C-alpha cells in the first residue's frame, strides 16, 4: 500500500516532467537542438502564475495567464535568437539556449528576489479511495495538465498547422518543397512549446516552492524523459515522464532523496547507449 501511495504521488511529479519533456522534444524534433532554456521558461510560468493567483484565487486563471506569458517568451526567444541561428551548428543553438535561460533566470531573480515563495493553497482533506490518500489539489493539477496535454495533442493532430509541424519534423526539406511555410510553422511550434513548459512550471510551483532556480533543476529529468520517450515523440515524452516520476518516487525509500536526480541521469545513459530511439521514437541514422 505504501508503494501504491508513492506511485500515486509520483504520477503528479511525473506529469510535470512530462510537460517539460514534451516542450523539449517538440523543439528537438523540429529545430533539432536540446533547448536548455526550457527549465527557465518553466520558472517564468511559475512566477507568472504566482502573480495572478493571489488576485483571483483561481488555479485555472493563473495557469492560463502563465501559459500565455511563457508562449510569448518562447516566441520572443525564437524571433530574437534561435531563428537567426538556424543555419548554424547545434553547438551555437545549444550555447545560445543556455544564454537565454540565464537571462530569464536573471530577470526572475531581479524582479522577484531569491526568497522562495509558495502558492498559498487552502488546505483540504485528502480523498480516501481504498486506503490511498489522494490530495484534491493533486487532482486539480492533474486536470490542468490533462487539459493542456489534450490541447497540445489536438493542435498537433487535428489542425493544419499541427500537421505541417509534424511534416517539418518528419522531413524538413520535403515539407518545404511541398509548399509548407516553415516560418509560420516554427513560430507556432515555439508558442506551443512555450505554453506546455509554462503549464509545467505552474504545476511545479504549486507542488514545491517558486524560486529562480526551480526550473533549471528540472532540466535533467526533463531531458532524460525526452530521450527515454524517443526524441521528437510527444506521446513518448508523456509516457516517459510519467514512468520517470513514478520510478523516482518509488525509489526514494531505497536510494534516498538526493539520488533521485542521479537516477534520471542513469536511465538516460542506459537508454542512449542501449536503445537510442527510446520508447516511441523512430530510429535515426545518427544520434
Amino acid at each position: 500500500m505504501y508503494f501504491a501511495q508513492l506511485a500515486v504521488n509520483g504520477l503528479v511529479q511525473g506529469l510535470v516532467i512530462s510537460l517539460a519533456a514534451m516542450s523539449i522534444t517538440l523543439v528537438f524534433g523540429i529545430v533539432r537542438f536540446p533547448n536548455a532554456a526550457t527549465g527557465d521558461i518553466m520558472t517564468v510560468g511559475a512566477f507568472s502564475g504566482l502573480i495572478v493567483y493571489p488576485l483571483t484565487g483561481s488555479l485555472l486563471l493563473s495557469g492560463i495567464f502563465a501559459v500565455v506569458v511563457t508562449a510569448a517568451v518562447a516566441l520572443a526567444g525564437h524571433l530574437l535568437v534561435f531563428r537567426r541561428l538556424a543555419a548554424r551548428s547545434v553547438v551555437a543553438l545549444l550555447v545560445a539556449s543556455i544564454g537565454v535561460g540565464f537571462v530569464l533566470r536573471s530577470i526572475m531573480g531581479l524582479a522577484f528576489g531569491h526568497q522562495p515563495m509558495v502558492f498559498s493553497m487552502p488546505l483540504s482533506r485528502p480523498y480516501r479511495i481504498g486506503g490511498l490518500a489522494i490530495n484534491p489539489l493533486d487532482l486539480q493539477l492533474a486536470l490542468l495538465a490533462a487539459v493542456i496535454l489534450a490541447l497540445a495533442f489536438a493542435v498537433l493532430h487535428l489542425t493544419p498547422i499541427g500537421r505541417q509541424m509534424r511534416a517539418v519534423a518528419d522531413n524538413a526539406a520535403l515539407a518545404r518543397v511541398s509548399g509548407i511555410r516553415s516560418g509560420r510553422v516554427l513560430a507556432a511550434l515555439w508558442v506551443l512549446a512555450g505554453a506546455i513548459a509554462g503549464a509545467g512550471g505552474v504545476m511545479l510551483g504549486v507542488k514545491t516552492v517558486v524560486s529562480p532556480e526551480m526550473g533549471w533543476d528540472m532540466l535533467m529529468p526533463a531531458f532524460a524523459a525526452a530521450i527515454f520517450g524517443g526524441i521528437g515523440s510527444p506521446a513518448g515524452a508523456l509516457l516517459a515522464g510519467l514512468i520517470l516520476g513514478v520510478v523516482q518516487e518509488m525509489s526514494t525509500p531505497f536510494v534516498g532523496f538526493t539520488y533521485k536526480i542521479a537516477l534520471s541521469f542513469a536511465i538516460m545513459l542506459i537508454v542512449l547507449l542501449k536503445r537510442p530511439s527510446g520508447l516511441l521514437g523512430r530510429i535515426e541514422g545518427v544520434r
Partner: protein
Amino acid sequence: MLSYLLAIAIITLIYLLLSFGLSLQYGSVGLINFGHVGFFAIGAYTSALLALSGVPLFASFCAAAIAAGLAAWPIGLISLRLRDDYFAIVTLGFSETVRIIIVSEKWLTNGVQGVPGIPRLFSSLPVGLAAQLATAGLLLAVCVGAALVMWRIIKSPFGRVIQAIRDNEDALKALGKDPARFKIQVLMLSAALAGIAGAFYAHYITFIIPEQFVPLVTFYVWMAIIIGGVGRISGAIVGTVLLMVFLEGSRFMRDFIPGVSEVEMASLRIGVIGLLLILFTLYRPQGLMGDYTKR
C-alpha cells in the same frame, strides 16, 4: 593591495587551466563538454581528502590529476557513441551527478557542510605574501606547461589529426586513423588539467563545499573561451582574464551603486553572462582573438 592582486591572479590562473582544457576539447576535437566542473570537483575533493589524511601534497596533486583523468575515461567511451548535443547533455548530467554524490556521501565528503581546514601549499613559508607568491608562481609554471602541451598538441601530427577529426571525421577514418583514441586522450588530458586546477583551488581556498561546484562554473569557463575565441591559447587567456575582470569588477560595482544586494548582483551577473553567450554566438562566433578574415 598586492595580496589582493595575487589572490585574483591565483584564481585567474586556476580558471585558465579550466579554459585550456575546455578550449582544447571543443576547439580541437569538437567535444561539447557541459560538465567540466565535475572534473574540477573530483580533483578538489581527491586532493583535499588525501592531504587531510596525511598524504604529502605533491602526491595528492598527482592523485587529483589521475582521478579526474580516469573519471573522463568512461565519459570518453560514451562520447564516441553519441552525437554532439547528446554528449553535452550527458556531461551536464555527469557533473550534477558528481555533485549529488559529494552531497550524499557524508562519510567521505562531509556532505553540504564541506571539508574545512585543507592544508595550504607552501605551509613551511611564513603565512601571507611569501606563500601566496610561491603558490602563484607554481600555478603560473603549471599553466605555462599546460599551454606548451596544448601548443604542441595543436601543432603536432597528433594535433593535425585532431583538427581533421573536427573537420571531417569520416574522411579521417578512411585514411586509416582512429579518431576514437584521440578523442578519449584529449578528454582525459583536459580532465586531468581540471583535476589539477581543482587541487590548487582546494588548497588555496582551504575550504570546499559542494555549492562551489555548480554547473554555473562550467558556463563561466564556456563564456571565457567563447569570448576569447575557441581552440586558441591566446583566446583562452584573453577570455579568462576578461571573465575575472567581470567577476571581480561586478563585486566593486556594488560599492558604487548603492542599494544593490549580493543576491541581486548574483542575478545580474548571470544575466550578463547569458547575454554575452547569446551576443557572441550571434555576432562573433569566432571570439575576440579568432580569425578576423572569416565572418
